[in-house]
């Protein structure tokens, strides 16, 4: 809780055992199952390659609806608070005081951690995926959404991209022990709406709080509808998921490109697959990162999975046994599932 600034550094060590890095994938690629072979096409396409290979050239009807966010005053990614700045280093005495408080009140760090991990770290990750500003170059993921999939560059489209990614995290959070998972979800949603409210005022130049409230209510019902539709798609079949993505992400546009839909289904299912292979502990510590659309996720063989699980177990066993482990780094969540 107290040293959020150290989180990115810590999570990068987790990533070495994660599935998603470039290196890791190229290692796995040599002995992956061949998903595309039956097509006689190129063997494995990342969602981005898949989408950009399409020969359907028709421009979406709503494509002219291009209104990149053009803020008078740009907000920082998370907040103005110095505690959320990546550069800020907490003074040692404050850190020590925090550790004493945690130890003497025996605080449940798994619960406390939900704020900085889900509320800041994961929210920032979801927010970044579709973030776009006028006269600023798009990030790689944003390029996939706005250029390859030809989605309109608007604020509400950004919101749709963000909630799609949040839903992906919700699915994993449900699989955590109930009280923690619930807390993580709550923190993520709370943060989303606080941030949107501030963005509406500062970046979208909404002046009236009544109008902002209307927008927020609308966003809220979009979030509920999207989570419901994606959940239905996730537990049934790909066509339902594709229809849910079409209605929400693509705004129900008529001349949709099926290849784009397929690429999105692939993108979503691949993220969920990576999440399903991640232990509660790693996920709760902020160790997950979305797989970029230009990367391909290959299924792990049982041997690879065993090796990965063993590495994770060893790492956390050593951590739990370490008598010098700081009270703020303790966790009771399982690292074996």
């Amino acid at each position, binding site marked *: 809780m107290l040293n959020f600034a150290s989180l990115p550094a810590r999570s990068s060590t987790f990533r070495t055992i994660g599935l998603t890095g470039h290196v890791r994938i190229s290692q796995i690629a040599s002995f992956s199952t061949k998903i595309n072979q039956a097509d006689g096409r190129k063997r494995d396409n990342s969602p981005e390659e898949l989408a950009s290979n399409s020969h359907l050239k028709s421009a979406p009807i709503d494509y002219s609806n291009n209104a990149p966010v053009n803020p008078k005053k740009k907000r920082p990614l998370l907040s103005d608070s110095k505690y959320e700045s990546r550069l800020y280093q907490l003074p040692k005495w404050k850190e020590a005081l925090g550790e004493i408080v945690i130890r003497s009140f025996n605080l449940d760090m798994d619960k406390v951690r939900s704020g900085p991990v889900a509320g800041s770290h994961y929210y920032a990750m979801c927010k970044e995926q579709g973030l776009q500003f006028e006269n600023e170059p798009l990030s790689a993921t944003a390029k996939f959404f706005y250029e390859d999939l030809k989605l309109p560059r608007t604020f*509400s489209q950004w919101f749709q991209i963000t909630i799609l990614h949040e839903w992906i995290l919700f699915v*994993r959070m449900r699989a955590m022990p*109930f009280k*923690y998972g619930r807390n993580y979800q709550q923190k993520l949603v709370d943060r989303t709406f606080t941030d949107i409210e501030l963005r509406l005022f500062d970046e979208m130049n909404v002046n009236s709080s009544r109008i902002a409230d209307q927008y927020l209510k609308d966003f809220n019902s979009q979030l509920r*509808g999207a989570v419901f539709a994606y959940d*239905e798609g996730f537990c049934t079949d790909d066509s*339902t998921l594709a229809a849910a993505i079409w209605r929400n992400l693509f705004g129900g546009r008529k001349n*949709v490109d099926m290849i784009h839909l397929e690429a999105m289904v692939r993108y979503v*299912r691949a993220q969920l697959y990576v999440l399903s292979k991640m232990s509660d502990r790693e996920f709760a510590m902020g160790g997950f990162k979305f797989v970029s659309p230009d990367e391909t996720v290959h299924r792990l063989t049982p041997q690879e999975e065993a090796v990965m699980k063993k590495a994770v177990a060893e790492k956390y066993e050593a951590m739990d046994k370490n008598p010098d482990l700081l009270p703020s780094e303790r966790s009771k969540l399982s690292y074996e599932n």
Partner: protein
Amino acid sequence: MSAAVRGAALQLVKHLEKLPEERLKHIVSLKESQLERFKAVAGLKAGSQNAQQKPSLQEIKDIINRTSGPLGMPKDVLRKVQDALPQENLTVEAIQEQNQSLGHILNNKYRDYYSTGDKLLKPQGNPQYYQRLMDEIEGKKKETFWSAMRTVVLGK
């Protein structure tokens, strides 16, 4: 439009018909909108099926209660966008690609390849979550007032 394009579109229409019906009615439906779009290309009469499946008054009320118009798009504009048939220059290759992609979606290629297993489908924190959702959608088991209250209080 050439005969080859029409033939390819006909194939696609046949494929589109295999898309499952939605369990809940929404303002727009992927299946119907795509059928309408490609039936025009294939030279088939569109709308004959639509007429039979007009939503009932109850369904319309249900949709209105659930959703408001998308942001910044008044309902009549939305309707116009939905009714406009896009002018497209379709090639045989493009349509065949559409067909192939649709095939992958229909075959659940990615669900089966990236199968997450029971870890996510029967999540530890709330194992009945998806089951209850599906039961409610399909109308198999209705939530009662008390079970709903229980969800509100306990969260699951």
